[in-house]
């Protein structure tokens, strides 16, 4: 166990190092540097700015400085907003995003799993078709379109929920649904197919032959097995909610990290793009690591040390 954890931790660091390096080089390969789009900068002003942000240093020196700062958890200043650092922006935006994201997960996972179980129990019957077609709809409607329609109907037409901003729970509902729709659909489909597969296994027949009732068969004998594919989806789901939050937060004008990220893309605020990307990457890599460990508790056939080798 310890061996596996240290091995995984090491590979996590390696992945992050490569991601940081690649993103850094990518951002610095943009022709002309970050201030070329600004109009009417005299060469002198430009030189001052470059000196202030050490952009006149050779690339390798900038890289070493940046890496050094990251070790101190300092992601540098924003080019656009002179008085703010990337750390400020993350500190502002992330708490909001994590609330919204958690809310979306709390919507997606329980509802998705329940819908999937119900569908599998009514295989090839109307309820199954309803769940399957709505989940196909769920994976076919991009979150920004769903968000726009939710705003149009629930905020403009029947004025049930606010259309934008971030002032309490009711502000969370429409963006939460927009973010949760896709993962909910995927979780429902995974649970359903997992259940269908497990329910056709020999050991379910054994349980039936023992006289186990339907409820216990599902709860004790089938659910744990069929949730294994759902757990593998937790990683991609986090990633999806994260990228989904870019547009959803922008549409609902929520001051979360996703909106700041999109704003920094509009502004070509390279240090912020770089910093937020690194922050997101670290987040996801750590999260995936936790999911892998959770996996072991769900499936006794997997032993961590073996898995680390494959």
């Amino acid at each position, binding site marked *: 166990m310890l061996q596996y954890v240290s091995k995984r931790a090491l590979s996590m660091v390696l992945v992050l190092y490569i991601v940081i390096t690649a993103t850094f080089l990518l951002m610095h390969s943009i022709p002309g540097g970050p201030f070329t789009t600004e109009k009417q900068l005299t060469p002198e002003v430009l030189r001052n700015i470059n000196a202030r942000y050490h952009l006149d240093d050779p690339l390798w020196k900038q890289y070493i400085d940046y890496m050094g700062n990251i070790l101190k958890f300092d992601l540098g200043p924003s080019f656009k907003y002179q008085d703010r650092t990337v750390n400020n922006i993350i500190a502002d935006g992330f708490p909001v995003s994590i609330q919204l994201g958690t809310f979306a997960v709390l919507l997606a996972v329980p509802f998705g799993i329940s819908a999937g179980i119900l569908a599998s129990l009514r295989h090839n019957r109307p309820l199954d078709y309803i769940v399957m077609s709505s989940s196909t709809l769920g994976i076919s409607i991009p979150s920004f379109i769903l968000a726009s329609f939710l705003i149009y109907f629930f905020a403009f037409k029947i004025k049930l929920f606010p259309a934008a901003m971030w002032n309490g729970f009711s502000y969370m509902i429409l963006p939460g649904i927009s973010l949760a729709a896709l993962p909910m659909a995927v979780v429902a489909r995974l649970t359903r197919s997992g259940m269908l597969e497990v329910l056709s296994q020999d050991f379910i027949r*054994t349980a039936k032959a*023992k006289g186990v009732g339907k409820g216990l068969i599902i709860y004790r004998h089938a659910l744990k097995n069929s949730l294994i594919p759902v757990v593998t989806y937790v990683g991609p789901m986090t990633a999806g909610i994260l990228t989904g939050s870019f547009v959803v937060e922008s549409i609902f004008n929520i001051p979360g990290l996703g909106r700041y990220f999109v704003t920094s893309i509009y502004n070509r605020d390279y240090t912020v793009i770089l910093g937020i990307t690194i922050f997101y990457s670290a987040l996801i890599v750590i999260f995936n690591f936790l999911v892998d460990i959770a996996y072991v508790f769900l499936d006794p056939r997997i032993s961590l040390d073996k898995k680390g080798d494959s």
Partner: protein
Amino acid sequence: MQPILSVENLKVIFNTYAGTVQAVNDVSFTLHEGETIGIVGESGCGKSVTSSAIMGLIPSPPGRIASGRILFEGRDLVTMDEKSLQKIRGNQISMIFQDPMTSLNPVLTVGLQLAESFMLHQKLPKKKAMEKAVEMLKLVGIPAPETRIRQYPHQMSGGMRQRVMIAMALACNPQILIADEPTTALDVTVQAQIMELIKKLNTELSTAVILITHDLGVVAGMCSRVLVMYAGRVVESAPVNEFYANPQHPYSWGLLKSLPRPDMKSGTLESIAGQPPDLLAPPSGCAFMPRCRFAMEVCKQPPAPIKVTEDHMCRCWLLDKASPHTPVTLFKECETA
């Protein structure tokens, strides 16, 4: 003596996209307390479907019991509701399956899977049930049962898992144990041990056993009666000695001829040419006719069951009064030729 189980004219069909399969057709037999009967036949002849029907485990859809009765202690299992069936399954009638590798739940401990029967049928609390599970593992000859109950199935060998399956099946001391090819998936050395175990428990606990197998050798050693199934029908049923000494159906004869015997000095084992018929479109007459070397014109009509002796039944036109040959003379003729 009253039989504890009697199957009467059982008919099971499966609806597939290609048509209706008559997997089991007009099967009848009885089972007495402590008795062991063997059901033999090739793959797909309806042996396993018959046992699933007794357990009420025909997957539906596509399968269903079209007609017939299965009387257990005077109650018909076919019409019984699911709740009452659950009380019988694993408690009074239980079953061992073919493949112990896939028949145990991989994510639950062996102990819990065993204890579950006690919790369900004897309403024991979990702790008590686990103690009983240890006892059961001891009974089926698993060493160090206290540690074994905390293990998962993948940590055990195939023979060990089949012992666990047997322990599970016998947990509530059932009146009937159905063993569906319990040794097919196991090593030959382990096979004998498992059969010994079933035999021992059969005598000690006086459990009636329905042994489903395609191994006539095992049947000779364990069973008191034999049922030979072919294409969903019982073609011959007889006490075991009578069957080996005096087989009547050409199919039974063929099966016996394909079995190696110690008294066989030389020669080659025979096999039955051809394959079982397609149950989607079974032949209108005797299903074995296309493969039968003694076939007659009349075999294109379905044969009726004929009593050879009081408890020896056979479905074959050769036994008809009008037939010029009897099976015995034909078999003799063949053997000398």
